[in-house]
């Protein structure tokens, strides 16, 4: 099949990793007029100098160097755009605020939502590009209903559709995912065959701006130590111990509680207003559902309720559920059977088979008839 890609301009978001590098190469070979862009999200002059060490993160100065060298190697123009302020405002501040609200944020979705598919897409349009492309493992297909559908990547181990639930029809119409139909080994193979300098490069880590993975230290450097310390309690409010800040805890966490108890205890809830960390047995981690807000439907739902399966975190196998649409872009999700560790601040993403129907941000564990305060959780 010969597509008419002649002179169609596409901006590829290059992180300096193997995925976006191969994506750039594939687009070039398909005949697009490809421009590489990297986002500068840190002021490296202060960041690197202060720490004085090399960071293995997405979008570090070393990664921008790699992206530039790959662009030179494959012969496409390459630029770096300065999104320091925007990254600070939309991603880092949100990340910190969420932890201090007792939630566990997902900065990668925010970065996709606010930076890549808004600001970077706008920048691409400024440069006369029809499309923005990324190295995400996900697919976009136009189906007979005339709508664009977002599908899982073909590599089940690498599928990144979870991170893309915020995309709109308008954004999808200007987005390309060249790696959607590929597996990671295939991508590495293409990189090696074309002698891309990043062919052997390791995967980027979880949170790019927390290079040592010590997010607690990061939060305390941002907002200071000793805030939100308080009691560790059980579901009846009985005090079991003390903690140094609610933001140190995540739902489902078992380690670091410092409480001796006949049964293993897990964090089952965080009450940032009362500075309380609520713990319980493994059984108490299970809830019947959740409520979520800021819901985006990639294709409009047919009725008031939707039978689907959902992922409540990235590394989660979809579980069957019923989604009830509420007013104000909110939904209630009822799992077919209780699910463990529903975590406010994470995204819930709805699937039907391989298709992403939409998603939203988890506000609360539990459903209307069996929610927090009704016995299941405090």
């Amino acid at each position, binding site marked *: 099949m010969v597509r008419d890609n002649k002179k169609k301009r596409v901006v590829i978001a290059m992180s300096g990793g193997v995925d976006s590098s191969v994506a750039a190469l594939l687009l070039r070979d398909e005949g697009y007029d490809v*421009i590489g862009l*990297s986002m*500068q999200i840190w*002021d*490296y*002059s202060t960041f690197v100098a202060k720490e004085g060490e090399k960071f293995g993160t997405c979008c570090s*100065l070393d990664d*921008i160097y790699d992206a*530039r060298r790959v662009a030179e190697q494959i012969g496409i*123009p390459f*630029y*770096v*755009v*300065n999104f320091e302020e925007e990254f600070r405002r939309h991603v880092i501040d949100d990340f910190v605020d969420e932890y201090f609200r007792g939630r566990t944020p997902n900065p990668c979705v925010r970065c996709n939502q606010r930076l890549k598919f808004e600001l970077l897409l*706008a*920048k691409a*349009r*400024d*440069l*006369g590009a029809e499309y923005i492309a990324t190295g995400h493992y996900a697919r976009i297909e136009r189906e007979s209903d005339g709508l664009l559908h977002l599908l899982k990547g073909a590599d089940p181990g690498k599928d990144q559709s979870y991170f893309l639930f915020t995309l709109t029809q308008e954004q999808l119409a200007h987005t390309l995912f060249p790696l959607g139909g590929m597996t990671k080994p295939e991508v590495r193979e293409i990189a090696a065959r074309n002698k891309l300098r990043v062919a052997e490069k390791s995967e980027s880590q979880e949170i790019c701006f927390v290079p040592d993975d010590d997010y607690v230290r990061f939060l305390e450097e941002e907002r200071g130590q000793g805030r939100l310390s308080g009691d560790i309690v059980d579901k009846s409010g009985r005090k079991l111990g003390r903690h140094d800040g609610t933001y140190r805890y995540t739902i489902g966490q078992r380690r670091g509680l410092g409480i001796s108890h006949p049964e293993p205890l897990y964090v089952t809830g965080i009450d940032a207003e009362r500075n309380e960390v609520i713990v319980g047995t493994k059984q108490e981690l299970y809830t019947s559902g959740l409520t979520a807000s800021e819901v985006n439907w990639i294709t409009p739902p047919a009725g008031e309720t939707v039978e689907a399966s959902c992922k409540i975190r990235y590394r989660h196998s979809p579980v069957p559920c019923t989604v009830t649409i509420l007013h104000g872009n909110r939904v209630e999700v009822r799992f077919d059977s209780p699910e463990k560790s529903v975590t406010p601040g994470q995204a819930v993403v709805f699937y039907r088979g391989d298709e992403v129907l939409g998603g939203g941000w988890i506000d609360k564990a539990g459903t209307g008839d069996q929610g927090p305060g009704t016995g299941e959780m405090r």
Partner: protein
Amino acid sequence: MIYMDHNATTPVRPEVLEALLPYYREHFGNPSSIHWAGRAVKGAVDAAREQVAALVNCDPSEVVFTSCGSEADNMALKGVAAAQRDRGNHIITTRVEHPAVLNTCLYLENQGYEITLLDVDREGMLDPAALEAAITPRTILVSVMHANNETGVLSPVGTIGEIAARYKVYFHCDAVQAAGKVPIDFKGNQLTLLALSGHKLGAPKGVGALIARKGAKLHPLIHGGSQERNRRAGTENVAGIVAFGKACELAMQEMASESARIAELRDRLEQGIMSRIPDVRINGHREERLPNTLNISFAGVEADSLLLSLDLEGIAVSSGSACSSGALKTSPVLAAMGIDPVLARGSLRFSLGWGNSATEVDRVLQVLPGIVERLRKSGEK
């Protein structure tokens, strides 16, 4: 391809390339050597020294060749600071200096020196009276640029020279952007130190000079052998120095006619933009300005989109200053001038040079309005 970024660097002039090539071939000697190979190049370095001296009106013995303009600035500031420590620890400079001066001053501040940063007005002009008022008995050095790299605005060098001489304070002038574009008078303006760079006037990168008045007390930055009258150790970059000399000679010969020609092109560009594109603002004093530089803000546009779009059309210009990643950041020079940050974000610098023609200016004028209009439309969304 159209190159209008001559304040960043200039193409090497063909005559300059011709002049330097023998020093990468048969004339390979070390100028410090006594034998034929050394003698063959020693004379060339001396001749270049005279050519540089002629361009800035100093004595050839006052020319110290360096690796670049930044080295010359570092040597002036750190060298004077170290040598004059017993006299005082106060240095006066301006907020609009090149990073080679500003960051060196920041370094010295961390080392215990006192730094006064003088403001400029909305047109980028320095008030000599403010400079005079800032001088204290502890002041050892005044450092003011001859011409600003971003706006092209000229400093009142003669007046500052008089003030500095009256208070017996050293005066260092960063003339990296001015050299070859406007006359420089080291002696007449009573300068103590002056920084130059080769690649801004048609020589290759990797050579510069610090002009240091005879008897001026400053420590070397690089210690070692006795090259450059003990002011700067290290085997000379002979080919670079020869090229620098040749470029200065050409600049000297052509300055009057070439400056007028380039000013005419710049004005054609400036008037063309003003008449074709609404809501633009010229940054910097309209008269007291280098003949080749146009710094202009486009309201409602991001400079990086503008710069990238022009690049994709083969037109090279620049904006603000770059981070180590290559991303743009808002210009501290425009901020110091009190330009609204939103407007400053949409600022471009066109800097013309000897290769530019009226046809090229017209091509820019053909392309630019459409790009600005497109970006303004997309910004409204």
